[in-house]
């Protein structure tokens, strides 16, 4: 570590009677409402954080069900219409031996969303009380979920592009199904859920002691 940045005692802003701005980083006296530098709303710890995490997570989970049962794509080829769901589309790609693309779609629209539900749920359950876990591990989990969650949108964009390009009347045309909208909503809700997390809770509640 360089000399020009020092943090000798690892004191938190909260213990020092200060409240930190999560947007620009500077600290203000405890009880300040808006950051003195950037004007964003200040809260030493976001007490309602876990409630919002659960609310968005549940909303995301609910719309994820129709996203999987309804068709994502409705393809018409020579008067024959076929519908494919998210998983059906992956299976189709495997049949066409496009394994790499099948893997990308499967990871983006099945593995990442399901993993996200599990990880956010795990963190939200764990952080209700002192957790005794390695905070670095939990922190990595949270960062990973926040970073990777938006990549689920790939499948929605694929549907959009195919719909726009494949429009040859009766010969071949592609229409989006209801699942595309549900899936997009699910991604947005789970992104909001991950953002609602106050990561400072991870470091506060390691052991049984109330900070300040």
């Amino acid at each position, binding site marked *: 570590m360089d000399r020009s940045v020092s943090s000798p005692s690892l004191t938190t802003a909260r213990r020092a009677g*200060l409240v930190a701005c999560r947007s620009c*980083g500077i600290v203000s006296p405890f009880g300040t409402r808006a950051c003195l530098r950037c004007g964003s709303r200040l809260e030493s710890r976001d007490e309602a954080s876990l409630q919002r995490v659960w609310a968005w997570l549940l909303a995301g989970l609910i719309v994820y069900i129709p996203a999987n049962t309804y068709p994502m794509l409705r393809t018409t080829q020579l008067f024959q219409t076929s519908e494919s769901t998210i998983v059906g589309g992956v299976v189709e790609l495997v049949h066409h031996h496009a394994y790499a693309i099948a893997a990308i779609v499967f990871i983006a629209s099945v593995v990442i969303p399901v993993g996200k539900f599990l990880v956010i749920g795990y963190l939200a359950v764990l952080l209700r009380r002192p957790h005794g876990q390695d905070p670095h591990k939990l922190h990595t989990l949270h960062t990973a979920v926040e970073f990777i969650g938006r990549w689920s949108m790939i499948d929605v964009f694929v549907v959009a592009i195919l719909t726009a390009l494949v429009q040859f009347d009766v010969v071949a045309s592609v229409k989006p199904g209801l699942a595309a909208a549900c899936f997009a909503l699910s991604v947005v809700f789970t992104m909001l859920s991950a953002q609602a997390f106050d990561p400072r809770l991870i*470091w506060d509640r390691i052991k049984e002691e109330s900070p300040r």
Partner: protein
Amino acid sequence: MIFDPTCIACPNCDVLHKVAPAAVATRAKCAQCGYRLTSGRPEAIARVVGLALTSIILMGVVLFAPFLRLNAGPFGSAASVVDVVLGFATGIMVPLALSVLCFIIVLPVARAALLLYALSPIIAGVGNFPGAPAALRFAFSLKPWAMAEIFMVGVAVALVKLAGMARVEMGAAFWAFALFVLVNAFQDTFMCRNTLWTALSARRR
């Protein structure tokens, strides 16, 4: 009230750090959780302004040039990025079309415009525009919602899916969009919160 710009707290774990004013050129991580507190790039402001301007110009090309062209026997269809978005726009799919439009065009451009608004007066050496702090704050919070790079991966997947049934040609907008994604990725390496906020607030009073 006066704040102390050399005392910052880690946004992830709340640990206090003292950053010397001369520390602009050093990289530093949070001693507890490893969060990158400063990226040590004093040239960040100029780079961010230049790259934001570049990406707005590129997006202009994207909007008014053909994106992809599909040839399948006697049939051909060309799609601009706007077509791609309007592909959804029937009935209940309209809200989805609008949000896709936001994710791939409106929000990435808004982010670049906000950065220009907040930071270009620093380069020009004039006083900050009104609401500059709010603009910079929004630019940071828009980041996860600007999904241009994800759209590009989606294009790649779609092209492979189509490869069997038709020939696809990339138009000028395709390459402009690819460049836009690269410029954005490069710009993000300079988006150091500490550097940008320190520069913005140093000139306010």
